[in-house]
């Protein structure tokens, strides 16, 4: 036991997350991202055991507070928490518009009174997690806030890419879809550029944020340019619920111009990976034969989500290191 801690001390490399919350990828260093991905590799092995549970978070209470509908993310967090032996409870609040501002703060403070250790928050308002992080003593994990960030999705995407390609640096990653409303895109741009990938984003001009190039990515509305020689093609959902404006003429036209078809993926590298954060609109952003085809790693992404969330929960459970840093 003493040898293990001495070894950690010797390395100047980042061996711990010295922060209270995970609010976004923007504030993480490349070394912290690598630490989460490395830890997730060890966590993935736990899921292959006959007994898929380790005692690491025994006695910790985690609240999953979801103000937006979610199947994948909420289930994934809950499985991750249970595999680490934490006590979990789920609070799902419908998509009513009353949950804003003061109400969110009040909900959080009432939950805090019951002394949870961590709160996993999904909320329709960008910045909801930052608000909670300021008023809560518990660790806050962002499970998607408005159009801002969805850090664990970007981490599981990176983990899935790294598992196949062994690296992220210098890979051409094309991200195609609704760039305007996507928190998955924002988190992925931060993460992929921090780790040195060559990121191309593509969508209808009406769905490309005007300042997107400021983040160090190439932006285009010509899907062929984006996917040509790509190592990874990541599709983003056309968010039908946010399409009240006239962003493009019809879903059929979107598919014809941007939909990922077998013909289009032939422009990419022969070992291209096709990714989608889900839920998919088949026949809109992705053709069914691509979604179910040999290049698709969409279900690997879901499987890896549990390991990545275990890593985040474990690493944050240590808490922020205060002034006592050596």
């Amino acid at each position, binding site marked *: 036991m003493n040898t*293990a801690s001495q070894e*950690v001390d010797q390395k100047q490399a980042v061996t711990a997350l010295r922060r209270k919350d995970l609010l976004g990828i923007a504030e993480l260093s490349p070394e912290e991202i690598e630490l989460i991905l490395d830890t997730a590799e060890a966590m993935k*092995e736990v899921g292959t055991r006959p007994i898929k549970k*380790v005692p690491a978070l025994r006695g910790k209470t985690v609240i999953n507070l979801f103000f937006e509908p979610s199947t994948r993310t909420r289930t994934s967090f809950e499985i991750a928490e249970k595999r680490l032996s934490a006590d979990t409870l789920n609070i799902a609040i419908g998509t009513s518009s009353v949950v804003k501002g003061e109400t969110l703060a009040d909900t959080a403070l009432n939950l805090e009174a019951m002394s949870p250790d961590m709160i996993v928050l999904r909320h329709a308002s960008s910045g909801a997690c930052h608000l909670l992080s300021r008023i809560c003593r518990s660790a806050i994990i962002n499970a998607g806030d408005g159009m801002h960030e969805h850090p664990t999705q970007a981490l599981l995407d990176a983990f899935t890419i790294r598992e196949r390609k062994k690296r992220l640096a210098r890979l051409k990653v094309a991200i195609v879809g609704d760039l305007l409303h996507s928190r998955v895109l924002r988190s992925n741009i931060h993460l992929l550029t921090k780790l040195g990938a060559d990121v191309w984003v593509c969508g209808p001009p009406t769905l490309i944020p005007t300042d997107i190039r400021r983040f160090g990515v190439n932006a285009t509305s010509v899907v062929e340019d984006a996917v040509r020689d790509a190592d990874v093609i990541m599709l983003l959902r056309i968010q039908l619920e946010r399409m009240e404006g006239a962003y493009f003429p019809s879903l059929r036209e979107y598919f014809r111009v941007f939909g990922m078809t077998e013909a289009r993926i032939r422009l990419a590298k022969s070992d291209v990976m096709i990714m989608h954060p889900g839920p998919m609109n088949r026949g809109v952003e992705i053709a069914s034969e691509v979604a179910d085809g040999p290049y698709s790693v969409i279900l690997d992404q879901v499987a890896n989500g549990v390991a990545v969330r275990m890593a985040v929960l*474990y690493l944050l459970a*240590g808490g922020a290191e205060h002034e006592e840093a050596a």
Partner: protein
Amino acid sequence: MPVVMDADRIGRTLTRIAHEIVERNKGTDDIALVGVRTRGVPIARRLARTLREITGQEIPTGSLDITLYRDDLMRHAVGPQPLVRKTDIQFSIDNRKILLVDDVLYTGRTTRAALDALIDYGRPKAIQLIVLVDRGHRELPIKADYVGKNLPTSPEESVQVRLTETDGEDEVVLETGGAA
């Protein structure tokens, strides 16, 4: 800082332990080696090599990371979490005799965690403990079955095992108190 075991001594000791393993288990049928990360792993691999030379049999060998089973996780008010690395056991431990390998036996807490971790992988026929150095000061009722060297120490001292695979050289050093 006195060197208590040099490379030759470590080599001879591991050869002796390998022979003890064969003698005590009447061969190496049903045996597997599991090294506790970090330095138990190269020691387990070396023992597997020596056992193959002695018996001609290939011994399944794995590595175990006990971090998630530590009894001091979450006991500190706040503090960074220790680094977790991958456990790699590619064989079933059910009904096998598992030889658990670690570099230093001290309080026994690492071994306790390793036993808990192993049991989550199945139900071995038996678990035997191999350590290169037993430095005393047990805090739990745990005893090694094979000991490379019994080394009386004071709690202020620290025993450093260095191995070629992890540290570039083979030696065991006793460091006196005060050193970080």
